[in-house]
């Protein structure tokens, strides 16, 4: 069973959480080209490896938080920085 580290409640069972998808890079400046904007809007990262993603503790404290999770092993790593 996967447990996720809620910053408020600590390690909790994954059934309490809702996945919020991978995080996006920072929103581009207004001067970007159309194709760069579409890329930012529609193209997610999809690695065989660590993905930085958001989770919502919906059936708990309600907090949103970001973790790094491996898409094959489900290993959860510390965020950079």
């Amino acid at each position, binding site marked *: 069973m996967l447990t996720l580290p809620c910053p408020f409640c600590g390690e909790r069972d994954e059934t309490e959480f809702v996945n919020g998808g991978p995080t996006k890079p920072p929103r581009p400046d207004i001067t970007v080209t159309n194709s760069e904007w579409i890329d930012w809007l529609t193209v*997610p990262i999809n690695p065989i490896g660590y993905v930085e993603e958001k989770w919502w503790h919906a059936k708990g404290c309600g907090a949103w938080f970001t973790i790094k999770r491996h898409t094959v092993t489900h290993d959860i790593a510390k965020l950079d920085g």
Partner: protein
Amino acid sequence: MGKFSAFTLAWNALSHHQNWPRYWQNVPLAKKYDVIIIGAGGHGLATAHYLAKNHDITNVAVLEKGWLGGGNIARNTVTIRSNYLRDESLPFFVKSVSLFEGLAKDLNFNLMYSKRSMIDVIQTYPKMREIRRRMMNGYLHGSSYNPINVAELRRRVPALTGGGPKSRLPIIGAMVHKEAAVCRHDGVAWGYARSASRRGAEIHQHTEVKSLLRAADGTIKGVETNRGTVLADKVAVVVSGHTTTITETAGLRLPVKSFNLAAFVSEPVKPLVDVIVNCPDLGVYLNQSDKGELVIGGAPDPGQSFRRDMKQTVFEDAVVTMLELFPAFRRLKLLRQWGGVLDIAHDATPIISQTDIPRLFVSCGWWGGFKAVPAGGYTLAHLIATGQPHEVATPFTLDRFRHLDFVVESGTTTAR
């Protein structure tokens, strides 16, 4: 060579069935082809078949990392249906269902095709509204979807004893999709492979594509495999969940994410359910195989995944919700579970398209791609041969992301 018929069956019986020709030929890998198809799964092999049959393009190599038909064509719940929602999706899936109906004859291969109706069990009014909308759109496109009441539902599915007036989610009605069918998934892969091979296409198993190669002018040049470099005029990536893994080797990023969708089967029992039962409010669906096993599918894993197993929580969810409607199934033992990696665009509609790299094609975003195998191969072959999308696949190009003109589909498994 080796056409299956009553005569050849009797003829080969004389030699104790020792002299049947192989389904497909294993020939040496050449240096160059007209078309390379990456992935010998349902869609890839169907594409090779229709390239040869409809467009006379036979200098084709289908490259497969593992073994033929070992990917998602072996990892689905064999449901064939066309009860989708959108005007853009319906003609495509109606085409696929009609191709499936004549497929055994087209391929000269017994697919054990069994048309048996799908019944959607409805337990909430929002779902009832959504499904009535699908019914009306189905009328427009020739996909039947007819309401039945609860008494008729229980008459047709006697094993469905749960969901009474006092339950958590009482059943309020049901919908019958008459065109729905099941067929043998391995038969689809082998039938297409046999047909493609006898028409001249080559199938190379255990040939893993490591990267895509681009010429100096940016167009596609070929692929780098574990058996060396293979050049081609056109390359099609038809590898389901690992599409981005391959296209990113040529610097092409696509608007899809990969997920794991799993299913499991029970021990074989006597004939019990003769339709496909889908419970969209609970997120579980099942049918009974010819062997008698109940084939049960549930929801995808939350979050991106490249695993091929079933998560305990997903498994428990599917079993618990199924037992709400089929309490008698609690005595069944479960035999096997499996998962498959699929990719999906955020509008849940497939992508059959040319890409930004000239002469590189992708067919991805298949979620419930088994039912789409014939039409997916048919339209991708059309696109590769003519350069233009087939009329039923026009809405499925990558252009819809450039123009933010999405086809948001709720008729797929994910949208539950």
